[in-house]
């Protein structure tokens, strides 16, 4: 098959869990990577090596272990910075996940500063957002008196940009949107939207939780008008560990924002009466950061770069096209989102009328096939398409065509199990 990663079987050997045998001796067919990705041995080994040989607190510790640990943590920042093509490595803030990153932003915009949001201001999101890019903005609006507005979705699963000029106006302070949808798979035109948002002076925030694992990203290479002001992703979906996320943001913006969490590491000086804060990125990294997790993420983005993000993307496209073709053969099955693989990422949500997604997932699971069933943290997108829940398969760089075949067979079996025509 065209486009697959060269040496796919060798790549799969890098992921110990892929040889896991499940109940009834079934091999694991992991099609839930948009939920969380599996981890290559090198990420696990790097973390173990750090814990067994270099563990110490960072920055504050002046001894040899402290120097090693600090160097490893800051090297991870360099790696992530290179992975994103960040203009400045100090623009890379480590958070615990992208959810924290988005909240960091929405939370600091409440307080006095150049970017403070107030009554009459508007925040624009989309109907395609993950809950983590909805609830923080709802809280912000509730707390500041600003108004939340959003782009709708067309029937074929694209953002409806027809009213962009009415939606994004001089009142707009922030436009926050997902790059690649975790439900519909849609790849959104963040460049065109950023261009419009920047015309009216709004900040552009991009949720790259699903984009970072799949698309080559080069922030520095983007024309400034089209470059997001803020972009976040989460470690556990990019073959890294849980407990670590990344918030990249324009340096001058980070400089101007008030602090989010207060405590150790983020201070310049503290008296009982008042405190001053350290320069970014440390200003936003209060407390002992997720050190071993950052180190693991560094190994993860190195692993991805080693494979080549272009190759990873090509693989994803090939497998997704194959999956879409396979799903089209299942009678009655309806896929949500673009039906053309070139316009989308690897998460494919679908329904089989007459069988509830949980029941689909359970039957598949009994055959070792792991998919997600439910609202995939996108209730409003589901409501838009008139469904309460869906089944979602999501592939990644280690997914083989044979696994897609297993899924399609499993779906046929599910239909017969529930005695559908």
């Amino acid at each position: 098959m065209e486009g697959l990663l060269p040496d796919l079987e060798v790549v799969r050997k890098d992921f110990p869990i892929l040889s896991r045998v499940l109940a009834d001796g079934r091999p694991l067919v992991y099609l839930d990577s948009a939920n969380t990705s599996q981890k290559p041995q090198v990420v696990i080994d790097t973390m173990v090596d750090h814990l067994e040989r270099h563990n110490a607190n960072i920055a504050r510790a002046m001894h040899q272990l402290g120097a090693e640990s600090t160097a490893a943590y800051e090297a991870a920042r360099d790696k992530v910075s290179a992975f994103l093509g960040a203009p400045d490595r100090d623009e890379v803030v480590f958070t615990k996940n992208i959810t924290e990153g988005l909240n960091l932003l929405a939370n600091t915009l409440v307080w006095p500063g150049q970017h403070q949001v107030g009554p009459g201001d508007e925040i624009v999101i989309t109907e395609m957002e993950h809950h983590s890019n909805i609830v923080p903005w709802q809280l912000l609006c509730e707390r500041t008196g600003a108004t939340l507005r959003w782009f709708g979705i067309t029937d074929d699963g694209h953002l409806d940009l027809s009213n962009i000029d009415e939606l994004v106006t001089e009142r707009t302070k922030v436009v926050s949107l997902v790059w690649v949808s975790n439900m519909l798979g849609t790849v959104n035109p963040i460049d065109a939207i950023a261009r419009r948002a920047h015309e009216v002076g709004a900040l552009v925030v991009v949720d790259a939780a699903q984009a970072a694992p799949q698309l080559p990203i080069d922030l520095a290479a983007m024309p400034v008008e089209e470059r997001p002001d803020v972009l976040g992703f989460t470690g556990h979906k990019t073959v890294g560990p849980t407990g670590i996320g990344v918030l990249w943001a324009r340096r001058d913006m980070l400089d101007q924002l008030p602090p989010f969490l207060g405590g150790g590491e983020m201070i310049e000086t503290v008296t009982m009466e008042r405190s001053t804060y350290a320069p970014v990125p440390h200003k936003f990294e209060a407390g002992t950061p997720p050190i071993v997790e950052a180190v693991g993420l560094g190994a993860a983005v190195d692993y991805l770069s080693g494979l080549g993000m272009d190759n990873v993307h090509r693989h994803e496209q090939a497998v997704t096209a194959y999956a879409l073709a396979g799903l089209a053969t299942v009678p009655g099955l309806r896929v949500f989102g673009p039906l053309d693989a070139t316009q989308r990422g690897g998460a494919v949500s679908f329904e089989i009328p007459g069988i509830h997604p949980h029941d689909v997932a359970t039957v598949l699971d009994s055959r070792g096939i792991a998919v997600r069933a439910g609202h995939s943290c996108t209730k409003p997108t589901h409501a838009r398409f008139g469904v309460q829940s869906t089944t979602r398969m999501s592939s990644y760089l280690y997914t083989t065509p044979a696994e897609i075949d297993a899924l399609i067979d499993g779906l046929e079996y599910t239909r017969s199990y529930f005695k559908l025509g």
Partner: protein
Amino acid sequence: MTTDLDALYQEIILDHYKNPHHKGLREPFEAEVHHVNPTCGDEVTLRVHLAHGPQGTWVEDVSYDAMGCSISQAAASVMTDLVIGKPVGEAMAIHDEFLTLMQGKGQVEPDEDVLEDGVAFAGVAKFPARIKCALLSWMAWKDATTTAQLEEAQ
């Protein structure tokens, strides 16, 4: 093959799923609750109507509207069969019995005299992800009944 799967999807469950008992929202009622399973989005709106007599309070009616999978729908149907017409204390005891069965990791032997069609859910206990489905309407019923009793006590 797939014995666990067949244990989960027993005929009784699929029958209740296809032809749920007591479905729909009815009047009168003393309490209405809306419960959601946040992880999957399954929802139930449930009403309880209690009645009183010399022997104490009993469950006169339970009506509901639910969206969800076969397990959650069938559980709601079986639950209404089990509690309607029972004294509240006895219905609560059935609830507890069902809860014990669900949390028993497949090690608990269900008592058919108490749980009737509910014994069909024994297989669910082996699917940790589905236990919440089976419990959703039971939790809603307990919540609504407690609320109704509290309201009346005031």
